């Protein structure tokens, strides 16, 4: 037994020695006195170039800290960024961007209109991961001309109201570095992460999933408030936040009480841009061709209950018009379906259909399905639940192999052209989440309005069309949006409180403006 004790004692001694030596402290090599270091939960999401970050996850946002774009996403709408002003021709085919002067690349060279032209042309040849300029397999850009040192004219193949944002979001890359690059996917040297954005990548460790960004001293724009931004590996976000290893975390509503009424913490509710939606397959189940059947379904679902029981209150019931509350063009006047069994039964007219609901095996989806089953049964609709692994569900959705599909995804805050890609027949070539639209559903009004709004360059006119579109969608319910999650974040304001939302996205940490001085 003595031996065991000795071993234990030795192990303990080693542990204490390690602690005493105090290793693991982050020695900042900064010489600027007290630099503000903000730490966030890390995880490997690729080398932050427009080509090497991973397809999923927050890699794109890390890349955007380094690479600026012509416009930036503000709290209400797009705001001037590398472009001070812009002008769109009446026919919607010519965009002229007037660039800011005295912008520098992070290697000290000046950024000019040539770089802008080069970037757009390079992206046509080599579409980056977050490419938004290829529609239906072809680039929208016809030609890019440099009018003078700080004016660029871009001609596109057809008017598209969502294009300003898309052009404005393209990342600018330095010509003098990238013109030599033939295979951008495998271009991973230190030169590959030189942009003209507010942060310089100092360190990246793939295995640990750690990133270290430092403020770019010669940045043209708003002064960075955060000097050093670190993404560090954590095993559990809440534990790491409590120990002060990270300065902001997402929390589940069950833990709110832990941080409420405490000066040290600030809790914020995210905008509802992530949500669950049911899709009806009209091909497999012709019963759904009948609008009454779809509306009956809408009345038989208790969204409020789903919000309370599944999302634990951190959500809002979705709008039947699809665009969520919080979307800049949300129409509050559309028809909504309260939970009403009597109305559902009235619309069913004594029918008692049976459907199979396809879901993934995630906890939330299983809970949603169980609650749907119970409330639909009260109205006389039988639901058989088929729960499969997420990837299997995705594959089935893509092929249209389901009767009713449950799916959760983000991006509900995006450009209102969403409505076209989600509801118009055959329009979903670039729709990420919905496989192939609504099988068997086509509505001329929705198709026409969808096509019309995208070529309406006048903002107010377009908004009116989008409002109308939401009304028809709410009346038709070819898809049934269930709820949009809000989610909570908690942070220590004393450490840093500059967190801001973009108008169309729900994550403050993804927002470049969160780290910069307010304008």
């Amino acid at each position, binding site marked *: 037994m003595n031996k065991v004790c000795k071993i234990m004692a030795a192990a303990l001694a080693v542990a204490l020695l*390690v602690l005493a030596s105090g290793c693991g402290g*982050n020695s900042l090599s900064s010489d600027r006195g007290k630099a503000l270091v903000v730490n966030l939960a890390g995880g490997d999401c690729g080398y932050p170039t427009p080509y090497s970050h991973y*397809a*999923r996850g927050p890699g794109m946002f890390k890349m955007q800290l380094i690479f600026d774009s012509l416009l930036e996403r503000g709290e209400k709408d797009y705001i001037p960024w590398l472009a001070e002003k812009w002008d769109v021709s009446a026919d919607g085919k010519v965009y002229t961007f007037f660039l800011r002067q005295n912008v520098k690349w992070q290697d000290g060279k000046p950024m000019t209109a040539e770089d802008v032209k080069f970037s757009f042309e390079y992206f046509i040849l080599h579409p980056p991961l977050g490419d938004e300029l290829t529609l239906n397999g072809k680039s929208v850009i016809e030609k890019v001309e440099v009018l003078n040192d700080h004016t660029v004219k871009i001609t596109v193949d057809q008017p598209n109201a969502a294009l300003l944002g898309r052009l404005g979001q393209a990342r600018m890359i330095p010509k003098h570095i990238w013109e030599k690059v033939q295979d951008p996917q495998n271009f991973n040297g230190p030169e590959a992460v030189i942009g003209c954005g507010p942060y310089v990548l100092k360190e990246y460790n793939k295995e640990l999933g750690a990133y270290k960004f430092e403020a770019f001293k010669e940045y043209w724009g708003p002064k960075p408030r955060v000097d050093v931004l670190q993404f560090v590996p*954590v095993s559990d976000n809440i534990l790491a936040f409590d120990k002060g290893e990270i300065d902001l975390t997402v929390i589940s509503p069950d833990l709110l009480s832990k941080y409420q009424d405490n000066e040290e913490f600030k809790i914020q509710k995210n905008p509802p841009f992530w949500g669950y939606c049911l899709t009806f397959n009209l091909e497999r189940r012709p019963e759904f061709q009948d609008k009454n059947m779809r509306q009956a379904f809408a009345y038989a679902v208790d969204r409020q209950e789903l919000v309370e029981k599944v999302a634990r209150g951190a959500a809002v019931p979705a709008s039947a018009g699809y665009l969520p509350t919080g979307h800049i063009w949300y129409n509050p006047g559309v028809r909504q379906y309260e939970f009403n069994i009597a109305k559902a039964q009235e619309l069913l007219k004594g029918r008692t259909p049976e459907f199979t609901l396809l879901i993934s095996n995630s906890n939330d989806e299983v809970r949603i399905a169980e609650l749907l089953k119970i409330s639909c049964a009260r109205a006389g609709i039988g639901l058989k639940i088929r729960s499969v692994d997420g990837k*299997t569900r995705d594959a089935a959705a893509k092929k249209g192999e389901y009767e009713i599909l449950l799916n959760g995804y983000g991006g509900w805050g995006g450009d209102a052209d969403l409505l076209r890609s989600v509801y118009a027949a055959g329009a979903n070539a670039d729709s990420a989440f919905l496989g192939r639209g609504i099988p068997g559903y086509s509505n001329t009004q929705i198709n026409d309005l969808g096509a019309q709004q995208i070529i309406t360059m006048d903002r107010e006119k377009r908004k009116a069309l989008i409002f109308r579109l939401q009304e028809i969608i709410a009346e038709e319910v070819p898809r049934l949006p269930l709820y949009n999650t809000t989610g909570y974040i908690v942070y220590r304001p004393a450490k840093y409180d500059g967190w801001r939302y973009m108008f169309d996205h729900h994550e403050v940490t993804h927002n470049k403006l969160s780290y910069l001085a307010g304008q």
Partner: protein
Amino acid sequence: MRKFGEYALTFFCIITLNFLLPRLIPGDPFTFLAADTDEVAITCSEEQIARYKEYYGLDKPLSSQYVQYIDNMLHGYIGYSIYYHEDVLAMIEKRAAWTVSLVTVSLGISCVLGTILGSFSAWKRNRSFDQRLYLLMISFSEIPSFLIGLFFLFIGAVCLGWFPLSGGMSPFAVFASPLPKMLDIVHHALLPVLTLVVARLGEFYLISRNSMLTVLSKDYIRTAQGKGLTKKRILFGHALRNAAIPVVTRMFLSLGHVFGGAVLVENVFRYPGVGYLMRESVMIRDYALIQGIFLFIAAAVLTMNFAADMLYQKLDPRIR
């Protein structure tokens, strides 16, 4: 030699299965219908997907993909990860060191510790010390390793704050010399190692206890006692040598289990090893990477089993 043939055949079956499995799972690396809350799913156009599939040979019939796969493997090329933009071999190499050291160190410790405890238990057979220890060990060996891991994480890192919560070493730390760096790595590894040790300890304890009991009932032990040798001398000088044979072989044979445990433990501690990578690669259906990792684990386990066979022959003259 015949043994070697058996192993080669087994390995061949494994690589064939390895090839088929990911392709039989529905879903592909390009379909991201649902994105996690903090994700923005970026989609590939059909054209891009077709180009990818052509590049990786996913558009060819299975048979020619298989031929290509075997051919590549013979050339030491086990694929390129679509998602991570990196050679699979390079990715595994970078992470293998973390996992292998985690596994070997914990295996070594649990083997030695288990043997010592088992021997004592056998010596004090049926007394209260033995009975208590036996109960303790049995209970520990039945708890899944990730639960033990969570327990240690909670006690060691959260309540006491003695250990880091996660990772293999401190990110961005600048070390003046190799020693503090070593200590930092040890500091991060302590909890994961401890978890794996506790999870496997019972197994070695039971084997060595049984084996020791058999040996202690032999005549030559009684002779040794008759000669008046000390307890320690008898236990660790005479008995252990013979009792250790099954323990040593078990050590090699249990490598597979330990790898399994390491996968779970790495995910609890977010340890940058192959196990953590494996979970990620399965989540995103990265065929090439899944295959590479399974291949790596299968090769490691088979090699060890083969070594165990060889060693057993060496240690035990009766098997020839």
